[in-house]
């Protein structure tokens, strides 16, 4: 290109300036401009070559520039002409880039418009939900104030009590306790011998310090002074069970007793009543008992033997002395809380008005805190222990009443509110009913007691047992839609980036507002591909309607029908278009089944009472359940929701069995389901679920 350039130095300045301005205004590719420059320069040179003087040259140059005409017009004409000269492929590329550029500009405008949408709050769903739940009753019939009071009065379990309480439930705590028990029994002879030899170390510790050490055990920690450069420096600790295992290992291996490795550090959130201050005082005053490791090990083994050796193997049944010793004080501490809870359970309705606090930024239904369901569940469980302690003290009627109170309290959370509340209700209902069955299995109730029990149970659910209610959740979802979509426009509105993220876990709570901006492109992209408001609401209603319809069908009816489940509908949804639905709508098939189990538990309990009443009156068990209905012992046959037939009832030699075929929908002849360890597991899909006899 440069080789084509003519030497323009010989040209007058006005020509060079003219050409330069012309090329600048031409605004085209450099290569083309270079060509045009070379050609025009050559033209000017040819025109001016015959000029003798520089003045003549200047004059002619001015004339030529005038001949060339308006510089802007010429630049446009040259650009147009040169554009027409370019090859087709270059034109296609240029046009493609132009189109892409236009699309990008349009997209940027669209994104800006999209991002600045605002929701319009038209419906006060909080008010609507309150109106839906508020019964037309007197305030004194409302259980909520009693429950609130009970929450305030409730004293939580200490770690040791927690261990004992957990022991009577399936799970890791029970397995751990049983392992400890077996370890102590298997090594009892060696342990006794070792204790006799080392007892002196513990006896040498003064009583005040002994009580501090024992206090640490209550919180499941064994303390050790940390020694740095032969000086006590701080305290460290190890969990009680780990220390027990370590001592027994040392005894069996006949090795010198050492501190366990690795030693734990006392957690910072250790219980406020843990004797931290006393331990620190020992360090300050240099009053660590001599042979502390041996002394504390003696105390650990004594405590372990006391804790675990006499634990009963059965999960249900009478309490052992050691359980009573540890659990009774906690139950007594909670007497006032329990009385409030029981008073609440006797009320006909539980209405908890929901409202935002004044400083709540987010006024959505979603942001209203749930009722303290875990506290409620803790109180219900405590009620069961209250019942067991009453029973151990010979107060059978009070024990039954406690169970009835727990069962009654459950109905306050059933058939309304959110799914979580209803699940907690079903779980508490199960607790109460199972304990009633345990009482009937352990104690021979009189006909009067059975009659009263039946009447009380009947009163809990005088109508139908409450099934799953989805309306509360539907309102919550509609409120999320209202607050996350614009109102109006194509499709009824679009999802607004950044409005829904705090309802989901896409934006971790520890991300502050500044960092949140980092996620904004992601939110915008997700919002842009999401279905519009009308489609989202229509799909949500379709799923909710299906869930409500399916919730009325028993698990068996769903099993044998070809009906599409809501869960299948979720799976068929396109994740990116309906992710809000995927996040907010629960899979209700399983939840509905759990509710139905509660219904069966209630009906089975009433049936068993009726059978025992029959037995007391007629000195034999009825031949069929139909006999109970015919003779008025039972108002209707208990239905198995896993077979849509009555629960299976069979007389045995001196007892009877009553069971559901369970979630595998197959009658396994009353063989109960088992977990991986071969232990009884209710509602297992590898066997039946026995209501009677009560498995211990």
């Amino acid at each position: 290109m440069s080789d084509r350039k003519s030497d323009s130095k010989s040209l007058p300045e006005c020509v060079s300036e003219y050409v330069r301005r012309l090329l600048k205004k031409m605004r085209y590719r450099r290569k083309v401009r270079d060509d045009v420059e070379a050609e025009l320069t050559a033209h000017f040179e040819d025109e001016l070559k015959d000029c003798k003087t520089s003045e003549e040259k200047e004059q002619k140059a001015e004339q030529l520039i005038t001949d060339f005409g308006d510089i802007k017009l010429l630049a446009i004409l040259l650009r147009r002409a040169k554009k027409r000269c370019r090859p087709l492929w270059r034109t296609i590329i240029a046009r493609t880039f132009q189109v892409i550029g236009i699309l990008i500009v349009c997209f940027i405008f669209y994104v800006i418009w999209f991002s600045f949408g605002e929701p319009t709050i038209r419906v006060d769903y909080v008010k609507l939900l309150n109106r839906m739940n508020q019964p037309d009753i007197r305030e004194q019939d409302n259980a909520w104030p009693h429950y609130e009071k009970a929450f305030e009065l409730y004293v939580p379990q200490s770690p040791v009590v927690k261990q004992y309480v957990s022991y009577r439930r399936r799970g890791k705590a029970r397995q751990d306790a049983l392992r400890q028990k077996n370890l102590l029994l298997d090594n009892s002879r060696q342990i006794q011998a070792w204790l006799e030899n080392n007892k002196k170390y513990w006896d040498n510790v003064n009583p005040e310090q002994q009580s501090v050490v024992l206090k640490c055990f209550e919180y499941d920690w064994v303390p050790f002074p940390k020694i740095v450069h032969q000086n006590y420096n701080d305290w460290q600790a190890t969990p009680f069970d780990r220390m027990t295992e370590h001592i027994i290992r040392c005894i069996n291996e006949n090795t010198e007793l050492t501190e366990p490795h690795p030693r734990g550090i006392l957690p910072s959130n250790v219980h406020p009543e843990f004797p931290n201050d006393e331990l620190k005082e020992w360090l300050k005053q240099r009053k660590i008992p001599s042979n502390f490791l041996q002394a504390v090990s003696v105390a650990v083994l004594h405590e372990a033997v006391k804790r675990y050796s006499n634990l009963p193997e059965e999960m249900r049944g009478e309490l052992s002395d050691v359980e009573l010793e540890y659990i009774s004080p906690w139950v007594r501490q909670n007497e006032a809380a329990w009385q409030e809870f029981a008073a609440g359970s006797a009320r006909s309705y539980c209405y908890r008005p929901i409202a935002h606090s004044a400083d709540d930024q987010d006024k959505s239904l979603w942001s209203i805190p749930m009722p303290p369901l875990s506290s409620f569940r803790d109180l219900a469980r405590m009620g069961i222990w209250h019942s067991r302690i009453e029973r151990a003290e010979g107060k059978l009627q009070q024990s039954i009443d406690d169970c009835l109170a727990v069962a009654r309290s459950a109905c306050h959370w059933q058939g309304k509110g959110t799914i979580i509340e209803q699940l907690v209700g079903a779980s508490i209902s199960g607790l109460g009913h199972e304990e009633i069955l345990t009482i009937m299995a352990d104690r021979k109730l009189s006909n009067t007691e059975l009659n009263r029990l039946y009447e009380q149970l009947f009163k809990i659910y005088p109508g139908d047992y409450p099934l799953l209610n989805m309306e509360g959740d539907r309102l919550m979802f509609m409120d999320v839609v209202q607050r996350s979509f614009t109102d109006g426009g194509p499709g009824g509105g679009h999802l607004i980036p950044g409005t829904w993220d705090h309802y989901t876990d896409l934006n971790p709570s520890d991300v502050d507002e500044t960092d949140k901006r980092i996620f904004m492109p992601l939110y915008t992209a997700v919002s842009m591909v999401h279905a519009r408001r009308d489609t989202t609401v229509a799909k949500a209603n379709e799923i909710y309607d299906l869930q409500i319809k399916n919730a009325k069908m028993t698990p068996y009816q769903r099993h044998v029908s070809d009906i599409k489940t809501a869960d299948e509908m979720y799976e068929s949804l396109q994740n990116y278009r309906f992710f809000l639905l995927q996040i907010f709508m629960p899979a209700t098939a399983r939840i509905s089944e759990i509710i139905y189990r509660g219904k069966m538990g209630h009906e089975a309990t009433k049936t068993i009472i009726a059978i025992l009443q029959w037995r007391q009156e007629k000195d034999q068990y009825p031949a069929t359940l139909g006999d109970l209905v015919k003779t008025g012992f039972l108002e209707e046959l208990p239905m198995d929701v896993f077979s849509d037939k009555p629960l299976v009832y069979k007389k045995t030699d001196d007892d009877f069995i009553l069971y559901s075929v369970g979630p595998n929908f197959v009658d396994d002849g009353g063989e109960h389901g088992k977990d991986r360890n071969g232990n009884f597991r209710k509602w297992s899909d590898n066997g039946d679920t026995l209501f009677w006899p009560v498995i211990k």
Partner: protein
Amino acid sequence: MKFESQLLKGVAPVVVLEILSGGQMYGYELSQAIEQRSGEILTLGKGTLYPLLYNLEAKKLIKGKWETAGTGRKRRYYSITSNGKDELAKQKAQLKELTAGLNLVFGGTISLA
């Protein structure tokens, strides 16, 4: 004599093609040739010449290439293409018909060689 620009604009491509049909030329040479051959009656403005050449090149009626002249200067020489020749023949035929029509109107005083 100066012509109305619109009138000249219509015939300028044919004039350029006609002159280039005699052999390749560069811009300045071409503008000189037009003036000489038309007895200085047709004067193509300089600002019109180069856009016209580029347009004819875009239509593939002429083609340009850089060459070094005898004086050592680089010039862009334009020559007529076969498409250009066809177009020239077509345009000349149309002009003849136009001239014939005009002769009838003006009494046979216009002729096209």
